[in-house]
């Protein structure tokens, strides 16, 4: 029997939500047509797909408001094999994605302060502080986050996640499942993969228990196909920036990463990236760039600075610089190829342990080198992220090696991915401007 809560959720997700958001888009479109474009804007025309992105992500959060009590809800880390949860009917919430949204909407200081008031140190990841603060206060820019039935943590990007999710597990009093890939030095050994595989089996059992649903291997394989296709499509979107001019900016890439993180393994995600890819290819054919005057191509390493995207992108675009590749967005395009639906579980174990931050510095250097060569960049900005230690440790060596191996200019840029209180805007922009001037 369908409950009232479930009915509300399905109505919002499939009928009311899409119609309302479509109406909002059309209204926004009318407004935009009335407004004349700024002739002095250093950017190319805005991406049409951005409207669809807004609809897709808004719907995700809108439906989320009605999810708990209607369908099983899982809070999931960005590197978790979320595909497995889809056939069980989970609504997946990504606290990291939510924290990025809070940061872009300048709400992190208030939310992080709430966590700090509970004793969480300011040195802790700003995503963690933001989301714990949001959980403690119930405040969020998306109206409401559904209460989780299950917490799903994968430590392939950092160990902080486990402590963060343990705090959430205590706060919400719900079970926590852990996928704990061993750190990969050189090449992972078969028993490493077996260790992950065993944890994946435990995950499936727990997901079945919480959702009260059994799924077949065929259903899992089907969703893995979708996830693999989604990451490949995302990779094609990123790949479009190999062209000159790049049809979009690295900052656009940060924003458009939402679906591959939060909706991976769904048809909506793949449909969106097909749309985006086609638009990017069309722009390439027409010679339309993400910025009007692409003079220099750069690479970005580490998380974006969510609260400063607009200012930094403008600073660069005005001077003819574009981040044509970023190790962060690339990370969601790399793993898909490793997934082999004929060996569903084993290949998933391999793919999820081979993410960028779960591998040694030598591998990180080779990824950055490959990106730099593929996208033909002249320089790189390594964001030394105040509260993301795993991504930032080793960047001085990376800087040195990239300069020596590729002869490109490299800047270490100190900031924080989500908390503007840890960002000294003027000195940071001064360093970045000086770096850009050095290309003259």
């Amino acid at each position, binding site marked *: 029997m369908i409950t009232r809560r479930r009915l509300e959720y399905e109505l919002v997700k499939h009928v009311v939500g899409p119609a309302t958001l479509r109406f909002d888009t059309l209204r926004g479109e009318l407004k935009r047509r009335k407004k004349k474009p700024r002739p002095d804007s250093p950017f190319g025309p805005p991406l049409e797909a951005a409207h669809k992105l807004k609809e897709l992500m808004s719907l995700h959060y809108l439906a989320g408001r009605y999810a708990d009590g209607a369908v099983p809800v899982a809070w999931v880390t960005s590197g978790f094999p979320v595909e497995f949860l889809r056939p069980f009917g989970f609504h997946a919430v990504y606290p990291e994605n939510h924290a990025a949204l809070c940061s872009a909407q300048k709400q992190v200081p208030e939310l992080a302060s709430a966590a700090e008031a509970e004793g969480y140190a300011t040195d802790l990841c700003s995503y963690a502080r933001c989301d714990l603060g949001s959980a403690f206060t119930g405040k969020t820019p998306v109206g409401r986050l559904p209460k989780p039935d299950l917490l799903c943590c994968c430590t392939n990007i950092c160990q902080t996640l486990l402590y963060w999710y343990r705090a959430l597990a205590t706060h919400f009093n719900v079970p926590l499942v852990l996928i704990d890939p061993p750190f990969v030095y050189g090449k992972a050994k078969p028993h490493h993969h077996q260790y992950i595989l065993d944890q994946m089996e435990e995950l499936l059992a727990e997901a079945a228990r919480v959702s009260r649903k059994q799924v077949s291997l065929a259903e899992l394989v089907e969703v893995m196909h979708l996830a693999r296709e989604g990451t490949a499509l995302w990779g094609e979107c990123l790949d479009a920036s190999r062209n000159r001019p790049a049809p979009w900016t690295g900052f656009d890439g940060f924003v458009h990463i939402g679906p591959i993180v939060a909706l991976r393994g769904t048809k909506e995600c793949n449909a969106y990236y097909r749309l985006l890819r086609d638009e990017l290819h069309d722009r390439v054919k027409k010679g339309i760039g993400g910025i009007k005057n692409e003079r220099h191509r750069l690479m970005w390493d580490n998380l974006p600075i969510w609260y400063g995207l607009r200012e930094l992108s403008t600073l660069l675009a005005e001077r003819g610089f574009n981040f044509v590749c970023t190790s962060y967005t690339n990370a969601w395009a790399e793993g898909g190829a490793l997934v082999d639906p004929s060996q569903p579980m084993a290949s998933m174990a391999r793919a999820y342990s081979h993410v960028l931050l779960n591998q040694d510095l030598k591998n990180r250097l080779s990824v950055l080198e490959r990106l730099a060569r593929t996208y033909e960049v002249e320089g790189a900005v390594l964001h030394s992220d105040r509260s993301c230690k795993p991504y930032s440790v080793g960047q*001085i060596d990376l800087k*040195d090696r990239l*300069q020596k191996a590729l002869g490109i*200019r*490299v800047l270490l840029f*100190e900031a924080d991915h989500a908390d503007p209180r840890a960002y*000294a805007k*003027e*000195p940071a922009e*001064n*360093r970045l*401007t*000086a*770096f850009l*001037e*050095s290309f*003259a």
Partner: protein
Amino acid sequence: MGIDVGSTTTKGVLLGDDGALLECVLEPTAPRIDEQSREVVARLKQKGGELPVGATGYGRKRVPTARAVTEITCHAKGAFFRLKRQGLLVDIGGQDTKVIHLGAQGDVQDFSMNDKCAAGTGRFLEVILGRLNVPLAEVSAYAARAPRVVSISSTCTVFAESEVVSLIAEGEPVEGIVKGLHASLASRVRAQAGTLSPSAEIFMSGGVALNQAMVAALAQAMGRAITVLPEPQLIGALGAALSVAG
């Protein structure tokens, strides 16, 4: 013409066609940067007429009708214009310390700046010397008289001030503390320079280059002689003028 609106001093230069400085202005930076810079530019225009203005320093964006260029680029341009050779340029400014690797063509190969705080900057020296009641003009003499170097372990300006207060209370000689301060600052600059090009010739620009004790401490820390640029305080403004000159 070029104007360098630093956190401590504002400098302006009028550059002749032959590269000579026709007019120089040097005064403490006032709280109202807009008014001050307008007056400085007006004084330079009285001598040189209507010319493009390049502005650098922390107040560069507030200089009316000027092209703003960062201190890194301007110090590099100014230093290369003077010396015509590659090397490592150290500029200890009021707010930040810059180490710039100058390429063979005077291009900025790489650079590093101190972290967000005032550790390792001219402000560090100014605050502590103020606490010790040592006039800037007598710093070198004080350091030269030091019977030994008193080690200062704090790099944070505020903590270093507390440490110095403790050292005074313990009866340490002021001269030794002054020498220790310079050694502490020099060791930070060495760490900054170490990641760039450790074997290059070292130049110094900026007002702190006039402090002989600092030059000596840096030479000792780096293990080689330091070339102080002529009129080191004006190098940024000179670079700003060069950045808009033809």
